[in-house]
């Protein structure tokens, strides 16, 4: 009896172990959907190496390129692809796995009305079956690292961080795409060439070997950050919108000193100016105002590995000012203690405790009913809102700031070595870049997800509980339009007119004003390509950690310690590889461009 019992127990154990083992894979795909996202976090934190490489072109230059005509002759395509395509289609269905960011929205990122549309298009056009692999937005690099190391990465991947792709290609993990980026294929991939041009497609071509490990997406919008202040608080205290740093500081002081008036019983929760651990981004307009507006491209490039301007001239003075504010109680005391992406700051902004902030130009408007400005009207009062102000003057009296370069600051698309379907992948990218497809993904269906106004502009209809499947994954579905970041409709006129009204539940005038502010005196940093900078590989993450720590520690130091703390942190950053990168960049610039100081 005992023996039988023991036998049964053992079998139970063994079987349960086996069962656990086999269900592993299913659980894994399910757990991919669990993300810790904070949808209002900046779009750009991952772009810290934007300027790392890439060919410099502005929107205007890209438009100079000739229109490429679509190759329509089926026989020609047949010959070009060595018979892989018959009548423009694969004779047998090719399955492609494609990465998409998962922002933990209301619908699964890999299964909604937009992915259905994409899947249908790919199947109809090329006989490609698309499978989306959701990757949590705020831990994307870690996730892709794991997938690559496990040889399970999607066939088409994207990330904002080129240094990461460079690290992959150093480990032989990425396909060289140059074979398909020749003139022969231009007609077949006409949409790609027309939208991205050589500026995007050849951006990462190695000047020595000609290898191309990634192609650059393109931003349809270039606005980056703006300074925001609470309009209703200014009104209550009878203050005008600040137009200089000094006036801005006075506003913050007034907020601090009038906490009782502004917040009543919650006066102790007053935060005149809020920051987060990515302080370089969250003080960008201030830092950029301290930089020399006449800076040479060379200096900008040499110090440009860090997109948060950590080593640029002038940054130290900006941080010193922040340090002074911090010690005077004008900045949120606890900001550096919270982890990246923590929701606490957002909750304080929505609850109305925060007086001013610097962030992406559309942060207060994102997310419809969850947007900061809409929440303020609900929780504080109808007049409560953040408005954009231009307030930090540079030494020339302008509002020096940097915009996103249309090419060079968007996602980089690459194909891991495990992808043996490069032709199909390019055809998919070509399809996703079709202006009609982009138009559909950004708007959806008329009458259901948007309505047209008389002037051609469109109103987005926010998906409600009955139409959850219509929910977009990200603003304008940018996670699906891999090559296009920002509103880009078939009709350019309508695009401009629609921009301000495309944010649900907020005042379009505020959006328009934020765009105007973000655009004032905005400059494009040239995207310099002087060859691969070896010292950069694999250091993106390490250095941005050190930079963030440096910003946080310097801001929170006592005023007396500021110099020491700043220097210590900077030394750490430089010895950890920052100096080596700057030296190599200077050397490469000298080698390729000689004594030129402008690109």
């Amino acid at each position, binding site marked *: 009896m005992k023996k039988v019992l023991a036998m049964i127990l053992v079998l139970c154990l063994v079987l349960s172990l086996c069962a656990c083992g086999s269900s592993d894979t299913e659980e894994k795909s399910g757990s991919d959907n669990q993300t810790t996202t904070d949808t209002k976090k900046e779009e750009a934190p991952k772009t810290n190496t934007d300027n790392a490489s890439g060919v410099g072109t502005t929107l205007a230059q890209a438009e100079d390129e000739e229109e490429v005509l679509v190759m329509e002759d089926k026989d020609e395509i047949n010959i070009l692809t060595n018979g892989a395509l018959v009548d423009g289609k694969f004779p047998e269905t090719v399955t492609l796995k494609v990465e998409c960011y998962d922002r933990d929205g209301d619908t699964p990122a890999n299964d909604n009305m937009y992915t259905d549309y994409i899947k249908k298009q790919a199947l109809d056009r090329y006989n490609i079956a698309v499978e989306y692999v959701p990757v949590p937005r705020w831990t994307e690099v870690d996730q892709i690292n794991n997938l690559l190391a496990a040889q399970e990465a999607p066939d088409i991947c994207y990330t904002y961080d080129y240094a990461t792709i460079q690290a992959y290609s150093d480990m*032989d993990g990425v396909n060289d795409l140059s074979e398909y980026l020749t003139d022969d294929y231009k007609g077949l991939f006409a949409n790609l060439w027309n939208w991205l041009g050589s500026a995007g497609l050849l951006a990462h071509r190695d000047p020595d070997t000609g290898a191309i490990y990634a192609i650059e997406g393109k931003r349809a919008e270039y606005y980056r950050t703006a300074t925001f202040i609470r309009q209703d608080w200014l009104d209550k205290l009878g203050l005008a919108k600040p137009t200089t740093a000094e006036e801005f500081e006075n506003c913050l002081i007034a907020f601090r000193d009038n906490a009782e008036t502004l917040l009543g019983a919650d006066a102790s929760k007053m935060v005149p100016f809020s920051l987060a651990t990515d302080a370089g981004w969250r003080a960008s307009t201030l830092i950029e105002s301290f930089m020399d507006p006449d800076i040479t491209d060379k200096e900008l490039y040499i110090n440009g590995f860090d997109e948060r301007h950590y080593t640029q001239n002038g940054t130290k003075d900006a941080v010193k000012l922040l340090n002074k504010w911090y010690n005077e109680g004008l900045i949120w005391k606890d900001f550096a203690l919270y982890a990246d992406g923590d929701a606490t700051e957002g909750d304080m902004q929505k609850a109305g405790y925060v007086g001013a902030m610097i962030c992406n130009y559309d942060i207060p408007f994102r997310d419809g009913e969850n947007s900061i400005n809409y929440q303020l009207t609900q929780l504080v009062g109808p007049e409560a809102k953040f408005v954009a102000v231009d307030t930090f003057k540079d030494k020339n009296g302008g509002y020096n700031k940097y915009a996103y370069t249309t090419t060079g600051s968007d996602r980089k698309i690459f194909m891991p*070595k495990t992808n043996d379907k490069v032709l199909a992948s390019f055809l998919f990218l070509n399809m996703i870049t079709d202006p009609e497809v982009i138009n559909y993904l950004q708007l959806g269906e008329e009458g259901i997800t948007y309505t047209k106004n008389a002037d051609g502009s469109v109103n987005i209809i926010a998906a409600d509980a009955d139409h959850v499947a219509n929910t977009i994954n990200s603003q304008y579905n940018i996670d699906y339009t891999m090559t296009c970041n920002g509103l880009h409709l078939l009709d350019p006129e309508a695009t401009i007119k629609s921009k301000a009204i495309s944010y649900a539940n907020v005042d379009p005038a505020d959006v328009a004003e934020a765009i105007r502010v973000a655009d004032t005196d905005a400059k494009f940093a040239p995207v310099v390509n002087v060859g691969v900078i070896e010292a950069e590989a694999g250091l993106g993450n*390490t250095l941005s*950690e050190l930079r963030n720590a440096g910003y946080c520690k310097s801001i929170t130091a006592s005023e007396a310690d500021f110099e020491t703390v700043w220097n210590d942190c900077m030394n750490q950053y430089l010895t950890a590889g920052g100096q080596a990168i700057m030296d190599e960049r200077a050397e490469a610039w000298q080698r390729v461009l000689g004594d030129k100081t402008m690109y």
Partner: protein
Amino acid sequence: MSKDANYIEGYKPRRMAVTTAFKKYWQLYLLLLLPVIYFIIFRYKPMEFIIVAFKDYKLNMNLWDMPWATTKKEVDIFKWFVKAFSDKNFHTALTNTITLNLLDLIIGFPAPIIFALVLNELTAKRYKKVVQTIAYMPHFLSWVIIYSIALQLLAPSSGLVNIVLNNMGIESVDFLGKADNWVWTYILFGVWQNFGWGSIVYLAAIAGINPELYEAAAVDGAGRFKKMWHITLPGIKSTIVVLLIMALGGILGGNFDRNFAMQNKLVLEKAEVISTFVYKRGIKSLQFSLTTAVGLFQSVVGVIFLLSANFLSRKLGERGLW
């Protein structure tokens, strides 16, 4: 004095042939098979990846095909070890790991023993149970939650403790943002989380002490402290030694989630430890070879510590781990 609960004077176990043993206790061996399989699959099989520390990691290659580590085109299998040891950040992580673990050992190790001794002296049964249960609770909280609690209590502007201090007219103390304060916050939260749970083993050991010893001591006129000192403590000495050996073996190891959840940007110079360094360099920055080398170093030092502690304890007449 018995060394061991199962020790019987004059008894010598008879050796049994392996096959007889198998036949007689086959169910037990069958049960043993499970953990053995587990260890082979999850502990021994992965050891082949140690070789990555001596190679240049390639994403698309099978482990055995990867080239040996090279510097300037010459094979240099210790390249990653040299690189790790010349990395300033690794030095900081190493020092911090040792400092934090030693502090943890000095302060955190005796805490459950003292708690077990005190609890053992309590006579009110119900009160004892309640205290015990409450003390166990923090063990079940994850470190992420504990850090959130720490923030709610200790943040300079919104933490409860600092609000109370402010109301008493005292300036806020930056428990979490100043490296030196952070170390103590870290250690004390660790003690708080673990002392209750850690005391279970000691309580079990105390329960195994022969009550006659206490009675005899009482007859001899020993008070509470004498009994504690001469009976309870010697009674659990071997348990203490075993746990101390294991703790010493982990002196370079450590709990990844505890450090990772508790650290913040302001205190990294004291808070970065080897496990978080490996995570940031290895997984986030893709330097698999470098961090495998670090991991290997960590394990080797851990084994050395474990063996020497074990050796010492046997020299001092204790039982040791084996």
